């Protein structure tokens, strides 16, 4: 047995060492690629006036009256065969630059298609790392990239599909302080983020810079898509001048999402971006697409035009670059820009116990009742032994169940009454529940800090996490 364990740790050490080497190699490749791009830019793309990257051109001399090389003609031949797209559409696309903010569920298919179709320069902004629970929907990433930056993973996937376009990695979170600098380098922007403050910030920045914005969103089994700030059309703030309450903003990590739903919306975002970049077709501006996967319904509705009262894009508004950079989007939306979950602190320290303390009390055989206030379908995934599931919204109506459980537990343990502990996923709802329980007389109720996630981290790492 012992030698077997020794082998495993040796293998782990070797894996770690190899991973470190791989990271070094990646860094060196990135540096060399940047160097190479610098050189090729200096050597003859001076003709490009609008700052867009243009791939090496030799076709002009070939006398076909367009600037596609033989390789480009062959690679994009199925585009060229489309009468409504043709050489002009492809040529426009090759000269265009698109920034995709977020390499997640929406960004994955959007980036794959934008790289494949031949957008001349494709930028990716993301500051997260690939996690196992991303894999079901963020199809640009592969298992070997788990634990590594999404930007690196997405850029590598794009390069392996199309090595002839320029892929730019922005491995940083988009903030009001860097958004102008990053977004100004592109012709149009694809919003593939997952939170309200980013959506306001990206829209405002697009207005300030005069860039069209392809905006998509997906949660659960529904998706939404529209194009903002295009050709005099509305911006995000024209539609949503006041941010919604933060409790109304569902996140995929809380509400769940069927993997293919952001996939559908991300593909449509790529399509809208391609239409704008190639100047072909009619972008989805002034209209919104609503996708309901469960009932297989897609509805396209007419939305308002540019609002005369819009504080950012109306003629009377004077929202400057300086104002943009100073605007506090997190405060405005009452929501953090980062995807880290909320950490409430509603209770006094003596109304809370750590998961380690709770474990000790179980070991000591303390008479107690553990109430788990997560939704029923969460409880079905994983739960602690002998816990009583009463979802937070039904707590008020089911308080009697707690009373009778406490009574029963107190009797069987012939002691001085049973203790009451409350658990949830991360330790927020459990605090809300304890607050309520205190109010109605269960004054000794305590919540378990950090919830099930804390328990899995500090007490039982074998507990499955979701």
């Amino acid at each position: 047995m012992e030698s077997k364990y020794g082998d495993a740790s040796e293998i782990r050490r070797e894996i770690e060492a190899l991973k470190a080497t791989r990271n070094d190699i990646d860094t060196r490749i990135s540096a060399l690629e940047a160097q190479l791009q610098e050189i090729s830019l200096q050597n003859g793309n001076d003709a490009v006036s609008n700052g867009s990257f243009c791939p090496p051109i030799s076709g002009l001399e070939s006398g076909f009256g367009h600037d596609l090389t033989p390789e480009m003609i062959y690679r994009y031949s199925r585009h060229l065969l489309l009468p409504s797209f043709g050489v002009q559409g492809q040529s426009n696309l090759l000269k265009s630059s698109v920034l995709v903010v977020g390499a997640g569920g929406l960004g994955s298919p959007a980036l794959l298609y934008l790289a494949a179709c031949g957008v001349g320069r494709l930028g990716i902004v993301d500051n997260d790392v690939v996690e196992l629970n991303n894999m079901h929907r963020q199809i640009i990433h592969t298992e070997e990239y788990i634990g590594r930056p999404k930007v690196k993973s997405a850029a590598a996937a794009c390069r392996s599909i199309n090595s002839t376009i320029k892929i730019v990695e922005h491995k940083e979170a988009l903030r009001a302080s860097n958004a102008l600098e990053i977004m100004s380098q592109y012709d149009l922007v694809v919003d593939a983020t997952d939170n309200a403050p980013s959506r306001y910030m990206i829209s405002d920045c697009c207005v300030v810079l005069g860039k069209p914005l392809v905006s998509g969103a997906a949660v659960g089994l529904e998706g939404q898509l529209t194009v903002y700030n295009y050709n005099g059309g509305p911006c995000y703030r024209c539609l949503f001048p006041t941010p919604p309450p933060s409790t109304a903003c569902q996140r995929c990590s809380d509400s769940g999402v069927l993997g293919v739903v952001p996939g559908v919306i991300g593909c449509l975002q790529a399509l809208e971006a391609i239409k704008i970049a190639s100047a072909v077709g009619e972008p989805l501006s002034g209209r919104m697409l609503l996708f309901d996967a469960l009932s297989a319904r897609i509805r396209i509705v007419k939305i308002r035009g540019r609002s005369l009262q819009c504080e950012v894009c109306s003629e009377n508004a004077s929202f400057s670059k300086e104002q943009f950079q100073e605007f506090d989007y997190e405060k405005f939306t009452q929501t953090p820009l980062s995807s880290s979950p909320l950490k409430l602190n509603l209770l006094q320290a003596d109304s809370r116990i750590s998961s380690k303390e709770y474990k000790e009390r179980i070991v000591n055989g303390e008479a107690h009742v553990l109430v788990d206030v997560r939704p029923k379908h969460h409880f079905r995934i994983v739960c602690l032994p002998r816990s009583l599931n009463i979802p937070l919204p039904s707590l008020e109506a089911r308080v009697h169940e707690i009373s009778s459980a406490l009574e029963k537990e107190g009797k069987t343990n012939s002691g001085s009454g049973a203790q009451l502990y409350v658990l949830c996923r991360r330790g927020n709802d459990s605090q809300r529940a304890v607050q309520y329980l205190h109010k109605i007389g269960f004054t000794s109720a305590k919540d378990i800090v950090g919830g099930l996630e804390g328990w899995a981290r500090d007490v039982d790492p074998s507990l499955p996490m979701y």
Partner: protein
Amino acid sequence: MQLTLEFGGGLELLCDSVKIHKVSVEPQNGAEMLTMKDLLTWVRTNLIKERPEMFMKGDTVRPGVLVLVNDCDWELSGQLNTTLEDKDVVVFISTLHGG
């Protein structure tokens, strides 16, 4: 008059997770026309089962909710003053932020 009311983007959770409601609503207080203002009051009383503050704020919908009358933003038809007709379809949809 017969109306089809649809809730989406999470708002259906406020009405027992039912997305589509075929309802019959008559003009209020002897008025001739039913307006969106009347309909909102009716929905709040008859369909919303929990957390009404997630649906309405003051006498209108809360920020972040789009209202569509026959697939058209209600901003284009007069918002609360929009008058409804038999067989109209009214959609309430919460804007999504996830991805």
